[in-house]
């Protein structure tokens, strides 16, 4: 466990990280001329970034790949994605995904 001062310093650092990452372009956008190529890349970046954030959370169990039916997160995610593709509605997808997650964890 960190010392109290170090934690406060960390919180200050993380605050700065949030402000800078979320606002860098919005504050300075007019001074940064993005090349055509980069603008093209940006169309694909949000979806890629979100997928890169999600997939390891789902298929890794304490660092090891778990692509089997015993992995509740995998079953839940497949359930949620399937329901979403079928119904196009987020609420049933999240709710039934959570149900599948709980069921697989229990049994």
């Amino acid at each position, binding site marked *: 466990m960190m010392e109290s001062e*170090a934690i406060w310093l960390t919180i200050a650092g993380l605050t700065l990280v949030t402000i800078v990452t979320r606002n860098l372009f919005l504050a300075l956008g007019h001074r940064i001329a993005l090349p055509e190529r980069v603008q093209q890349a940006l169309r694909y970046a949000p979806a890629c970034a979100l997928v890169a954030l999600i997939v390891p959370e789902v298929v890794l169990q304490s660092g090891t790949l778990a692509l089997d039916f015993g992995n509740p997160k995998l079953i839940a995610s497949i359930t949620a994605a399937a329901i979403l593709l079928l119904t196009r509605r987020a609420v049933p997808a999240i709710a039934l995904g959570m149900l599948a997650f709980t069921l697989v964890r229990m049994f």
Partner: protein
Amino acid sequence: MPLQAIFGRDAQLATLRRSAFVRGARAAAPALVATSIWGLVTGVAMIKTGLSTGQALAMTLLVYAGSAQMAALPLIAVSAPVWVVVLTAVIVNLRFVIFSATLWSYLGRLPLLRRLVLGYLTADIGLALFMNRYADAPVEQRGSSEQVWYLFGSCSATWLSWQPMSIVGIFLAGYFPAQWGLEFAAILALIAFTVPLVVGRPTLAGCLTAGLVAVLAAALPLKLGLLLAVIAGVAVAMTVDLLGTRTTRRPSA
């Protein structure tokens, strides 16, 4: 606070803004249960890590970045050097740089303060919702009042579902068992709002690559795997695009 202070004095304009704001907030509604649970879990996790109440409150209100906070907490627990924690958060949050660059073409003409407020509020769900709806908006129509207030509505709703619950988590941490798995609801919500973004062959190829690389490189320090995954995903998406295997609907430039 009088509504005039938020939506302006011009009645017609205020109605338009308010309806866009409400549409945005409604669009975010399906995610709000998940984000509030995620906020609660993050609040609990901060206290369980050993942060004081004041530190946890400061962290939730100032940092407001669930995945960066969750990445930082285990490092705080093992007394990692401050710069390691901060650098890890930079990499986890790099996607926000991409998001804000994406939003620039929509928000660039707003006054600086509004840009900054919207930038601070725009986390994953708000961005995913916004791109679902307006990714194909023609360049000359970007930055309309309707778009700006839609974004403000969905992001305010997310913020308001996250913060109070995070604070509840901070004060009631003692009552929560360590392993409930509730935080997974947040991942499901992210999935629900990310799947509709994966339209067209280049995006699909990019996302598959990003997912694969993120898993293969997950063990890299400082969450560098996340960065590698985005770079690889975007490179593959652009290659597929250039090869001309275009499908019916492409996100517009």
